[in-house]
């Protein structure tokens, strides 16, 4: 007879809420008449993310002590719950940004169904407690994202981007799976804490397995040198999808990287700390230098996201309480800034009906004052300037690195920031310092469309970016209690 494990449905609710929304959305695609095909799915998807976020917040409140679920397959703890709250917020804003995206009527509901499915996968992923659920969660949201990247078949490059993402992403997943198999082979255990408990020595096969797991996760976090798909996928995907990928995927991948490394491999920390630090430095160098020569704004932001992965990996490499707090804190303004920045790019793209380059951003700041100021704030935030949470995030990350004695990571981060000033300020320069008249840019088809949903999304992102600068203490308090769920 099969013994069914006890299932804590409440702990799975954030993921299930999104899954339910996704299922409903597929029904909407069939049953709702054409007239309601645009608003209904958006409302449903937004509701799904909000419900998931609220549930996750409750879960965070009621999970002071970490408990294992379903035979250690999942964890119910504040680390996962807080990540779910951030993910749900990112997803909700992504829905707002998606609303005005040019989509074929018949595909609107599928789009949102995939978006919520990806969100559900990520919410599941961050709770993963063993190697099986780890892989399952990863594939779950990845497959949804592969399709989302290629969903706009009218968009030049979208299919190509989807294919590239699929091939490279599948390679990353396969690496992760192979690594998991090796680790299982050595330890005979699947769940993270029991892998740690076997007290495995320096088995070469285990080290190889660990390395492959790190590589697999680094693919998802788009850390260099595993970022090859990032610029193409970010550029080719519909901009609202890019916004979601840049924020949510990174949140999920980094949070899980930290969890896996600290819970399953605490005995090998002398190895993975250095490995992560090296990946961080490579990401910082590659992301920032490659961004310097880009003209397409989405590509610039894609490389900038690679460099931000580097910054957050500094916190992972430090792997001390300060580092865990730094990572969770950094994710909040980072998610807001990337959602907002891609939202502004989407607005420009929709009014010009062509890809946004530095050239055709000219005068944008004066034509659309609110979006211009918002973009200005996002760029300064990514650069780590005061009055944005990006500044405090970098400060915390550096403090964590110093706390662990990795002063050379501070040096790398500072040099990377210096380089990044060129392209972040370059975007501000493109928006404000040049006149649109001299480039003869005009919105395609009359005056620029006003999109209240997008404006609301950007406004939320702006509020979070600036608000996280002032409300550091509450955010750090939540992050501290979340970090206490993990051993290191």
């Amino acid at each position, binding site marked *: 007879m099969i013994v069914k494990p006890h299932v804590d449905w409440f702990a799975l609710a954030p993921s299930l809420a999104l899954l339910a929304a996704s299922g409903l959305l597929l029904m909407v695609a069939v049953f709702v008449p054409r007239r309601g095909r645009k608003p209904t799915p958006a409302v449903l998807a937004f509701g799904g993310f909000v419900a998931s976020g609220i549930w996750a917040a409750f879960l965070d409140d009621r999970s002071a002590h970490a408990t294992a679920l379903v035979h250690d397959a999942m964890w119910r703890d504040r680390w996962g719950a807080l990540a779910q709250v951030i993910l749900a917020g990112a997803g909700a804003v992504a829905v707002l940004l998606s609303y005005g995206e040019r989509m074929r009527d018949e595909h609107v509901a599928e789009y949102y169904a995939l978006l919520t499915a990806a969100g559900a996968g990520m919410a599941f992923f961050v709770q993963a407690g063993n190697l099986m659920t780890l892989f399952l969660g990863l594939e779950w949201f990845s497959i949804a994202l592969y399709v989302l990247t290629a969903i706009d078949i009218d968009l030049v490059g979208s299919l190509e981007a989807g294919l590239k993402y699929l091939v490279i992403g599948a390679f990353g997943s396969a690496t992760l799976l192979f690594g998991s198999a090796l680790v299982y082979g050595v330890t005979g255990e699947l769940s993270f804490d029991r892998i740690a408990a076997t007290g495995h020595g320096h088995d070469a096969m285990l080290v190889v397995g660990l390395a492959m797991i790190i590589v697999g996760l680094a693919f998802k976090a788009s850390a260099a040198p595993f970022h090859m798909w990032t610029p193409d996928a970010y550029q080719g995907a519909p901009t609202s999808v890019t916004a979601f990928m840049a924020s949510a995927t990174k949140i999920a991948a980094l949070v899980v990287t930290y969890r896996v490394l600290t819970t399953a491999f605490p005995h090998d920390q002398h190895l993975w700390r250095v490995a992560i630090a090296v990946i961080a430095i490579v990401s910082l160098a590659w992301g920032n230098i490659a961004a310097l020569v880009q003209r397409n704004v989405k590509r610039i932001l894609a490389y900038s996201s690679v460099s931000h992965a580097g910054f957050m990996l500094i916190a992972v490499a430090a792997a001390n309480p300060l580092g865990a707090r730094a990572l969770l804190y950094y994710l909040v303004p980072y998610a807001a800034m990337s959602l907002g920045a891609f939202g502004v790019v989407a607005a420009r793209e929709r009014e010009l009906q062509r890809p946004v380059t530095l050239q055709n951003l000219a005068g944008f700041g004066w034509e659309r004052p609110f979006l211009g100021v918002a973009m200005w704030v996002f760029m300064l935030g990514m650069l780590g300037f*005061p009055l944005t949470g990006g500044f405090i995030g970098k400060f915390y990350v*550096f403090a964590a690195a110093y706390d662990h004695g990795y002063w050379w990571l501070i040096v790398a981060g500072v040099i990377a*920031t210096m380089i990044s000033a*060129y392209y972040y300020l370059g975007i501000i320069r493109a928006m404000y*310092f040049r006149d649109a008249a001299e480039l003869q840019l005009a919105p395609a088809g009359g005056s620029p469309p006003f999109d209240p949903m997008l404006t609301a999304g950007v406004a939320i992102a702006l509020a979070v970016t600036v608000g996280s600068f002032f409300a550091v203490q509450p955010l750090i308090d939540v992050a501290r209690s979340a970090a206490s769920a993990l051993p290191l």
Partner: protein
Amino acid sequence: MLTTALIAIPIVGALIVAMAPLSGYWLGSLATLISLVEVAVWITTAGRFDFGSSSLQFDQRASWFSDLQVSWHVGQYRFSLWFVGMTVVVMAACTIYGWWAGRERARAYFALMLLLNGAIVGVFTAQDLLLFYAFFEAMLIPLYVLIGVWGGAGRLRATLTFVVYTVVGSLLMLAAIIVFGLQQGTFDMTRMGTSSSQWLFLGFVVAFAIKSPLFPFHGWLPISYRESPPEVSAVLSGIVGKAGLYGLLRIAIPFFPQPVHDWRVVILILASISLVYGSLLAFRAPDFRGVVMYSSLAQAGLIVLGLFAGNTLGFDGAVLQIVNHALVSTSLFLIAGMVERRTGTRGEFSLLGGMARGRPALATVIMAVGVISLAVPLSTTFAGEFLILAGVFQQGWIWAVIGAAAMVLAAMYMLRAISGVLHQDVGPAVSENALDLRLGELAILVPLVLCLIGLSAWPNLISSRASSPAPAGWTQYAP
């Protein structure tokens, strides 16, 4: 509360200006009003200030995030009061100049000027290292746009140069701040002890030397000062540069007594080079702004001589001279703007000349400011320079000799500039239509000149109310 108010008034004002449903002219008058209110609040502060006490006054402290001991901590020492005072006066003059000049895109312009005003006051009053850094960086944001949007033809390159230099400097400082703060266990400057780390000291000094600027970190200066709108040049040279000097005075010198001792000679040499080299460049400059901007380099060198003299004489002289130079260079840059506007030139001496004839107000103002700036005896700048030289003499007679020689050079370049504009033959660009100073312009310049004349009559107002006896935490100040 008053200190917080001094920071908050312009920043809140900036938000109001950014959103008020008014036309350009009225936005300008609103911004002017706000900057004048700021001056009034500062006068109130100065009136209530207890100059007999060397401790922090009007301070306010609230925790920002506690695990790293970072707080919103602002307050004013006696010398801070003068820094804030010169800031609010200069910013008011420059805001009014922008209003008078009718800058385009008024909403953004005035909002940014007010934001800049608040950020600079923040720099001079922050008593938490991270807060100081936040304000220090926040200054750059409005400046970047002010130069980039309202600047001259070469503004794109100017902003790039300016930003590259300052970002490099400030990030070095950020690294130093993080390490220093975590070592001390707090970021509150009133509770920090000293450090003997050479690296941290250099991280701070390089950032401040770039901002001041000091030779050889002055590469951003020529293009930024020439391409900015004149009132922004005035702010850059008058007060933003002073933020660098303030950093030396408030952070680099008190917290790093041992490195200060070790590096004193190097810094004095660099300051001397700035002084002499800046003066020579000013003498060779082909345009009016060139003279003023290189004289700023020279003056920064002189002030650093005073700061690193390591005694109260030099310190008092430096504070006095900082205020003097803020007023002088603001006046000169604004005059440069007015002359350029009248003649349609960029201030080249080859195109100017003979403007004194038929323009008595212009001639009087230029003469008054010019004469004060070249430190004739009885002027406030003479008092400041004298104190600095007397102070630095104690470090070695050679520094005083260099300083005295530079005073002669100052007379040379300033008289050349005055005669290049006012005297000699009438320049090709000077037409009969170039009028004398109007009432609006006089309303900006005359108060500045009156401040200078007032200080000339009573330099002791500042020099005896700056440092001595040394404020808390300054006991290490002695050489």
